[in-house]
């Protein structure tokens, strides 16, 4: 379990993290969302025990990160931003070093090394200095280091940043595969990632926690939640047909691709009514979709007023 209480970090007058409290239970994948400089990394650094909080505190698996740092660090795996590692070492030497520092010895050492090397498909680069590896492989070495001791808690700061789509997919699959019995906290500003891996999302901006909900709940806050989008061969006809649906609050037409979006009145469902109206008027549509809500829009609405100052 991770628990933070009024976690705060100040740099002089600047408050980077401002009284953040949350709890994460095993099985949850918590996504930290927020604009750059929102305090995501600072929060993660405090939980990982790298930075000391100015006030408040954090507990990892019941261990206070300040008063029992060694126990807390033992129970967590941390991937710092940018996945730093010792460039002159080979992945094998680097992972063996991590295993030794973490006190993994004997059979367990070989078993764990084989496991992470297999999971992250590092076999082909084991003997190559990390400096010479591609960004994707460097990131995978960083992830391997974080999960080497099979920790109950994983903190991953932008684990997919800079990866190509295939590599992103692989990392997300890995996170999903580990998620059932672990606590995983990831930070990202890629909103599709929240859907792909997170069971819960926290939005931080200006050092404050502004929202804490499941991705689906966040989407319901979107203006687009329950809206119906369609592309018709004849936009005018479609528009006329939609005008007959009573529960529609407003209609917007995308000026570029003429895609029509109909917004329902509060609390109304319009999908069936819209599709019936289109049929009744014999409007041919090439596409008709119910919108779940757009996270990027929710993200902007929540964080926009806060984007002033702050630091990473």
């Amino acid at each position, binding site marked *: 379990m991770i628990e933070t209480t009024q976690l705060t970090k100040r*740099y002089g007058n600047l408050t980077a993290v401002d009284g953040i409290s949350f709890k994460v239970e095993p099985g949850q994948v918590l996504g930290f969302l927020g604009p750059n400089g929102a305090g995501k990394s600072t929060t993660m*650094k405090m939980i*990982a*025990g*790298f*930075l*000391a909080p100015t006030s408040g505190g954090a507990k990892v698996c019941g261990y206070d990160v300040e008063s029992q*740092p*060694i126990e807390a*660090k*033992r129970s967590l795996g*941390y991937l*710092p*931003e*940018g996945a*730093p*590692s*010792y*460039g*002159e*070492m080979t992945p094998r*030497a680097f992972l063996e*070093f*991590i295993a*030794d*520092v*973490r*006190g993994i*010895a004997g059979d367990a050492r070989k078993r764990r090394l084989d496991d992470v090397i297999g999971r992250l498909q590092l076999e082909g680069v084991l003997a190559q*200095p990390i400096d010479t590896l591609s960004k994707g492989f460097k990131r995978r070495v960083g992830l391997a*280091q974080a999960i080497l001791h099979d920790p109950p808690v994983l903190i991953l700061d932008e684990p997919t940043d800079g990866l190509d789509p295939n590599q992103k997919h692989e990392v997300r699959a890995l996170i999903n595969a580990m998620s059932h019995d672990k606590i995983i906290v990831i930070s990202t500003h890629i909103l599709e990632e929240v859907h792909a891996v997170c069971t819960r999302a926290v939005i931080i901006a200006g050092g404050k926690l502004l929202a804490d909900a499941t991705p689906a709940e966040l989407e319901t806050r979107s203006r687009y939640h329950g809206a119906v989008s369609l592309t018709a061969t004849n936009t005018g006809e479609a528009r006329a047909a939609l005008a007959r649906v009573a529960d529609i609050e407003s209609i917007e037409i995308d000026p570029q691709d003429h895609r029509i979006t109909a917004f329902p009145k509060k609390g109304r469902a319009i999908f069936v009514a819209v599709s019936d109206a289109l049929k009744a008027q014999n409007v041919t549509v090439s596409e008709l979709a119910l919108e779940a809500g757009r996270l990027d829009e929710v993200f902007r609405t929540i964080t926009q007023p806060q984007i002033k100052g702050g630091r990473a």
Partner: protein
Amino acid sequence: MNPIATVFRRELKGYFATPVAYVFIVIFLILAGSLTFYFGGFYERGQADLSAFFIYHPWLYLFLVPAIAMRLWAEERKSGTIELLLTLPITMFQAVLAKFLAAWAFVGIALALTFPIWITVNYLGDPDNGVIFTGYVGSFLMAGAFLAIGSCLSAATRNQVVAFILTVVACFLLLLAGFPLVLGFFQTILPQGVVDAISGLSLYAHFDAISKGVLDLRDIVYFVLTIGAWLYATAIVIDLKKAD
């Protein structure tokens, strides 16, 4: 395995992973040798001892040791590995000590490779090997003190060049404080007690005493305390500067 030993091994191997280590050792040996034979007048002195060898060590270390020390923490900060290292289950003290000891061991290896000169002097004459031994001890302790200073100043910046220059200056001042020239100047304006205190702080005075064959416990305590204090300061500086 003990985390200090693990980090120590990684660091020491790290020196030899690049040509830098070999370049350092070669330069060290060439300079140590040429200073001894040309400037020290090893043969002309006609004495079977190594004082011509040890007398130049403070000046040799003044430039070579900061070159080793400058990367200790500046590089960790620059590459971000400091975040990795300090979130592993080791204490700050263990990390500082392990990195320092690895650097010290590396300088120790370079120093040990000067052994042919010890053999030479034994071949040529009949030197007091006890004095030569304490000379090595003194030289090694002084390198440790320089390294500890460099460790602290390296933690203060992520720029290795800045770390190098700061360390050279700090070590230079601490060396100078023990020279008769400087002490003579202070003697004219300060009371004897203060002059003694300045000379007592100087690395040179303690090195000189040990390298002359006088293995006084006070000199050893001085070096141990100096190293300990600068390493303690290193940990404090890292803590202060971590967030930048």
